[in-house]
Structures are given as C-alpha cells and as structure tokens.
C-alpha cells in the first residue's frame, strides 16, 4: 500500500511538474504547481512528517499559490502579451546542462549507502516534537526569520507603489 502511494504521488508530481514548464498559459502552470505541491504533501505524510505536510498544504498550496494566482488575475495577460514561442540554441544548451548535472547527482546518490532508515519515536514529526525543537535549539534563527519577513513585506509595499 505504501509503495503504491509513493509511486502514485511521485508519478503525478513529475507529470504535473513537466506540465508546469510546458503550459503556455500561466494559470495552467499555477494549477500544475498546486498539484505537484499537494503530491509532495502526501509524500511528507509517508515520511511521517505530519507537521511539515500540514504546513505544505496551508502555506504553500494555500497562501503562496493564492498569491501567484492573484497576481496572474491582476495582470490579466492577453495572448499577444505572452510573446511568440522562440527557440534559441541557448535554451537547448541550458536544458542539456541541467540534465547532465542531474545525471551526475543521480549517479552520486545511487552510489551512497542504502542503509535501512532508523525506527523513529512515536511522536516523530508531530507539532509537539517539531515545536519543542524549534523553540529551544532553533529559537534564534526563528526570531531572525521574523525580521526577514518584515523586510520582505516592507520591500513588497515599496515596490508596489505607483510612482516607483
């Protein structure tokens, strides 16, 4: 059952990721990305990362993708504004280089030691376990993160001004 779920989620995630870069219409790309992210949330559950899976759905497929779709609707791009498809040699070189680097990474991964995963505690990946660690060991990075978000909000407001 777990194997079936893994391969189902993985296949849908890869197919919709291909669809993301294939689609000409940005709305279709956004929907494809939502499907990929939802499948990744399923994979997180298979890895017993329950809190991370919840956050994936709430923050990523919820908040961030709504922001994307909102901007797409706001711009309301017409067909001529999407630009004619152009094929430059640079694109093929870039794509080929990406594939080569992926093959190198895959070879390295396959050479690693495929030891069995360690058994984990009963509350592994729950909000309790993650929260305890987050607010003790990682408290300072967490506080710095709030500064980063404040700076990002201020930057987005200033960039959004009409007379930039």
């Amino acid at each position: 059952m777990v194997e079936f779920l893994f391969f189902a989620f993985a296949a849908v995630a890869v197919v919709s990721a291909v669809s993301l870069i294939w689609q000409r219409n940005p709305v279709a790309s956004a929907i494809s990305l939502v499907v990929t992210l939802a499948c990744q949330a399923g994979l997180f559950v298979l890895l017993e990362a329950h809190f991370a899976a919840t956050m994936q759905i709430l923050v990523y497929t919820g908040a961030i993708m709504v922001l994307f779709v909102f901007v797409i609707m706001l711009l309301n791009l017409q067909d001529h504004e999407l630009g004619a498809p152009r094929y430059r040699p640079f694109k093929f070189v870039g794509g080929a280089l990406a594939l080569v680097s992926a093959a190198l990474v895959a070879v390295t991964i396959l050479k690693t030691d495929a030891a069995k995963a360690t058994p984990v505690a009963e509350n592994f990946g729950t909000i309790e376990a993650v929260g305890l660690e987050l607010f003790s060991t990682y408290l300072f990075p967490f506080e710095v993160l709030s500064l980063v978000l404040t700076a990002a909000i201020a930057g987005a407001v200033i960039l959004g001004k009409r007379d930039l």
Partner: protein
Amino acid sequence: MIPTVYYLILSTILFTLGVIGVMVRRNGLVVFMSIELMLNAVNLSFVAFARKLGAVDGHIFVFFVMAIAAAEAAVGLALIIALFRHRTTVQVDEANVLKG
C-alpha cells in the same frame, strides 16, 4: 518502507525540472514558479533525510525554507507587477536595460 534513495531520485528529478523551467521559459511568472519547484524538491530531500536519521531538524529546515519562499514570492511578484506597469510585459528577456 520505501528506500530513502527513491525519495532522493524523485527530488533530483523535480529539481532538474525546475532548473529547466528557469532556463527555458521567458515568462517571469513561470520562472518564479519553477524556482518554487526547486525549493520544494530540496524540502523533499530534507524530509527524507530527517526520516532516515530519525532527527526532527530536517522538518525545521523545511519550515525555514517555506518562510523564505513566502518572502521571495511576495517580493518577486511585486517586482513582476512593477515591471508590467513600466513595460507592459512579463517577459524577463525584455527587461534588459538598467535605466528606467
């Protein structure tokens, strides 16, 4: 139990698709979505390693990556809107002068 290697290979595939999206597409919105795809591929390997090592630290890094991705999306989309106001385009290769 699925071997960790499977998750890492899936993560590599998704990351590569994100890189190809950034390389090939000119629509700024799709380039941003491809960057989100790359961040998520890395999140997947973080969670896979957290499960393999039985340590919860990987989940916290996923949390941090999500927060940075949210900040990046907010600023990036504001940039795209500013670009669209000035040039009436979202094609990243048409924004090729430094002077407004």
